[in-house]
């Protein structure tokens, strides 16, 4: 247990959900020293999830949703610094910024997030080929979408399908190319993934599985996307979402251990004294199994932020929050509690045909994860049940009239 001193200072690299949360939570935990949040840009930190959802609709909001209002930084005495870190000296406990200035720290938090994986094919750098991560990307995409007639989406992950559904809702012709056999195959059970494939197709999206991209060509005023099947798809706009990489370069250069993320222990500390890593960029031991995982989600970012603040305050408890995720694809709302494994046994609750159901995923008789489609009540109950590692016998789960909400009330004695 280390005691935080009144002279301590904190520098946080990255002002996304995770970085902001650790700053906010440090103040609410009573940390009184200087806090500097390195934003890397001169705009107020904003929420990213709406960029691929609300932001692309016809009646999209005109401005980004900030993570906190401008007064927050003054009232909480948090320095929101527009600079970006260039190097970290963990011996001297000093961060050098790209402008050559330096900041000393007692505690340093890496909240550097993730960067989009580049599309590894010729033509990926053509102007009408878009990726989506920043507000700038979203503004460009929004403008391009306003006149687009034919869109090709490369990658049927969350971003690709959220965009595809938003574009389709605007009446645009949409083709989605996915090299894997299933959409969102790494995140969803086969049952849920197959349902999404059918649903997107019935909404008019041309979803092509087992088909990757080999090149993007200029053709007339537009583009032509060449696929591994030898097909050519015309487009006036291409969006790719082919995964992300944790931003670990700065940490690596500072001598921190990385392996698909900056390695941290269960209190979110790296092996180097005074240095923590949180959110998308951190590889941490999963509660229960101890297996290393790295998650890209708002929940992970904010819960890591809260936990890291407590670690800095000297409470070295194990991080054990249940992960949850969401995606909005057109009118389909997907919520996931827990992390599924392909070997889990799926049980469908409700009726997939009416578009409102959940898939419970059992592992050794325990509810390991639940995927809910247009069923928030199931999801909320699932979060509690998955967190409690509740045993759920198949005969209970498959009994007629079984509901996760009622089951949670019974076994967890949750007040109604």
């Amino acid at each position: 247990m280390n005691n935080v001193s009144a002279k301590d200072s904190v520098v946080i690299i990255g002002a996304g959900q995770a970085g902001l949360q650790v700053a906010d939570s440090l103040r609410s935990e009573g940390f009184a020293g200087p806090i500097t949040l390195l934003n890397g840009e001169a705009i107020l930190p904003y929420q990213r999830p709406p960029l691929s959802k609300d932001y692309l609709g016809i009646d999209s909001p005109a401005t980004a949703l900030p993570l906190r209002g401008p007064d927050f930084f003054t009232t909480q005495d948090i320095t929101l610094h527009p600079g970006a870190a260039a190097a970290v000296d963990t011996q001297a406990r000093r961060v050098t910024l790209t402008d050559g200035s330096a900041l000393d720290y007692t505690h340093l938090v890496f909240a550097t997030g993730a960067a989009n994986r580049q599309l590894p094919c010729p033509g990926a750098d053509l102007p009408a080929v878009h990726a989506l991560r920043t507000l700038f990307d979203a503004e460009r995409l929004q403008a391009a979408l306003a006149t687009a007639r034919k869109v090709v989406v490369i990658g049927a992950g969350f971003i690709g399908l959220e965009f595809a559904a938003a574009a389709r809702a605007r009446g645009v012709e949409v083709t989605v190319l996915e090299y894997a056999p299933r959409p969102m195959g790494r995140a969803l059970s086969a049952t849920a993934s197959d349902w999404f494939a059918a649903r997107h197709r019935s909404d008019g999206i041309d979803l092509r599985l087992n088909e990757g991209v080999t090149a993007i060509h200029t053709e007339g005023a537009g583009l032509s996307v060449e696929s591994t099947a030898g097909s050519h798809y015309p487009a006036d706009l291409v969006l790719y979402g082919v995964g992300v990489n944790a931003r670990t370069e700065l940490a690596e250069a500072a001598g921190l251990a990385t392996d698909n993320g900056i390695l941290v222990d269960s209190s979110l500390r790296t092996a180097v004294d005074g240095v923590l890593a949180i959110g998308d960029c951190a590889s941490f031991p999963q509660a229960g199994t101890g297996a290393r995982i790295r998650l890209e989600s708002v929940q992970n970012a904010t819960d890591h932020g809260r936990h890291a603040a407590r670690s800095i305050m000297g409470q070295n408890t194990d991080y054990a929050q249940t992960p949850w995720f969401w995606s909005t694809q057109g009118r389909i709302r997907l919520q996931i509690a827990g992390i599924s494994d392909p070997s889990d046994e799926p049980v469908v609750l409700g009726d997939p045909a009416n578009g409102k159901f959940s898939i419970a995923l059992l592992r050794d008789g325990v509810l390991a994860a639940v995927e809910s489609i247009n069923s928030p009540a199931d999801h909320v109950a699932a979060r509690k049940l998955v967190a409690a590692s509740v045993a759920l016998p198949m005969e209970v789960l498959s009994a007629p009239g079984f509901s996760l909400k009622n089951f949670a009330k019974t076994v967890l004695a949750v007040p109604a």
Partner: protein
Amino acid sequence: MPTITFTQPTGEATEIAVAEGTSLMRAAVTNGVEGIVGECGGQAMCATCHIYVRPEFADQLPPISDDEDEMLDCTTAERTDASRLGCQVKMTDQLSSIVVDVPSDQE
């Protein structure tokens, strides 16, 4: 411009003028109103923008969708008949002013 008044459990009130179409959540987050988090960015996914609408405005509100109804069941502070998610209530020409109470806890 429509106006929103957020009243804290302490009794402190903040009045904010917003453009039409602005949700209560967006107004609160943008203006740093304490006690409204909006963690999911307005998708009715997190229930951290729970507010209580004063009864005199109840009949001017949009109906509660199934999604909002189900998420309201999992707010941290107790759900009452006045409970709404701030992200699902937008200011319009029909709803030009509103007074809401912020719960004591969201997360």
